[in-house]
């Protein structure tokens, strides 16, 4: 990856499209930002390095959404969870490939990059989701 890749949400999703989850690490104070951001909120530094996020993590909370916004109508009911990666960082996302009554706090999940439909004009971001190990 080139040094010029900006530390933005847009760039985060460009990596997702390549099957990678990446965070920005501040070169001055060492804080890891997920999502990446162009200005370190801890020390105001603007110099970062990309670091890969571990693909495995644990479920810290979940819900099954029955009433969905229009663009997710066809998928409802669907499971949503917050996953905490092995390095402590967290991300929310859809949980697939598991019966909803088998969801459990603390269960191991892995990130998956299966392509999903996107009919919107903006944004053109891909989606990641979480699956059981």
């Amino acid at each position, binding site marked *: 990856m080139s040094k010029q890749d900006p530390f933005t*949400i847009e760039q985060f*999703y460009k990596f997702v499209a390549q099957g990678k989850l990446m965070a920005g690490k501040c070169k001055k104070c060492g804080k890891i930002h997920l*999502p990446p951001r162009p200005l370190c909120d801890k020390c105001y530094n603007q110099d970062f390095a990309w670091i890969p996020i571990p693909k495995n993590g644990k479920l*810290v*909370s*979940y*819900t*099954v*959404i*029955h*009433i*969905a*916004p*229009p*663009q*997710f*109508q066809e*998928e409802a*009911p*669907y499971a*949503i*969870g*917050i996953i905490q990666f092995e390095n402590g960082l*967290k*991300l*929310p*996302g*859809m949980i697939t490939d598991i019966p*909803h009554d088998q969801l459990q*706090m603390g269960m191991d999940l892995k990130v998956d990059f299966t392509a999903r439909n996107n009919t919107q004009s903006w*944004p053109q*971001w891909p*989606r990641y*989701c979480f699956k059981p190990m």
Partner: protein
Amino acid sequence: MNGKPIVSIISAGLSKFGKNEGLYSRELFAEAAKEAFDRCPKLEPKRDIKAMFVGHMGESYEHQGHMGATTADWTGLLNIPAIRTEAACASSGAALRAGVYAVLSGLVDIVLVGGVEKMTHRSTKEVTEYLAMASDYPFEQWHGITFPGLYALMATAHMHKYGTTEAQMAQVAVKNHHHGTLNPKAHLQKEITIEKALASRTVATPLKVFDCSLITDGASCVVLSKPELASKFTDQPIHIIGTGQASDTIGLYERETLTSLKAAKIAAKTAYNMAKVSPEEVDLAEVHDCFTIAELIAYEDLGFCSPGESGKLAENGETCLGARLPVNASGGLKSKGHPVGATGTAQAYEIYLQLTGQAEQRQVKNACIGLTHNVGGSGATATVHIYRRPQE
């Protein structure tokens, strides 16, 4: 001895909350403002009101932004400085806070603060989409997380950590629906039972329809004055003696905990310190029960009980009218309704009625100190205000 008055409320108004078919936001706001003007005959709005701050969350509902100037015009206050404040469901809590800044600055003595939202003409799907805009777009909305979904994630975590039950959450709904039956301006005047609440349709597990507040049309306002001038306008001013506001990450997932709102805790601490009031001294509170779990978390964040004890507080009926600490005597967002932009100052309106002894059937006896707690989004904004009846 409690803290000294920061600003005084000299009047307040509230539109009927509910399905106000055919009424546009500015018209609802005019209804609330008229009540406030009528309550305070010595106030000459055109002469005395020098600025307006109006909470309004979404342009999407009516294709209408720029709500400050619009509502100023429709309340006969054209040409005064008027701005909209937006902090999701805490938009008018933020308007109240902005009014406090304005009066304290010394630039203006009397301001009208309020809020409005017109929602019921939209489908539930559309409202779900608009409300989600208060959350993080790239990492929450983009992945299908709804607003109830965020509070459901908090509920799942609270249940797991503390053993809080769905029945305890339902108890909050039963209480607030009961209180709503005593409020003629509430959206719903309908008792419900725990069984009915638990059997209602799932929205986002573990939250069901009766765990969710209502999609409502409504407007609210209060008139703030420099404390030294309050007695010129009314014999019954209510003083704001503490104000706190704080922010947090827009994304729920980024926070250290899912079982508490840090912004609410900071706002509460700031307000309590300023007011020189402890949680035990609060006689009644209007808290942000957008979902039943939110009211339980509010008990803990406001220091009404220890972390993890809120379910028991609800179960034991300690926050019902007639009990030690009535919470949401108005019916709350759950039964009075939640026109999002109007909620913060609707809470202030209720405290104003209660502390001036005008709450009729739902009057909390001898209420002296009241508190409001207004939360935006999943907790990225919180405002807390503490109010006191003048001491004799």
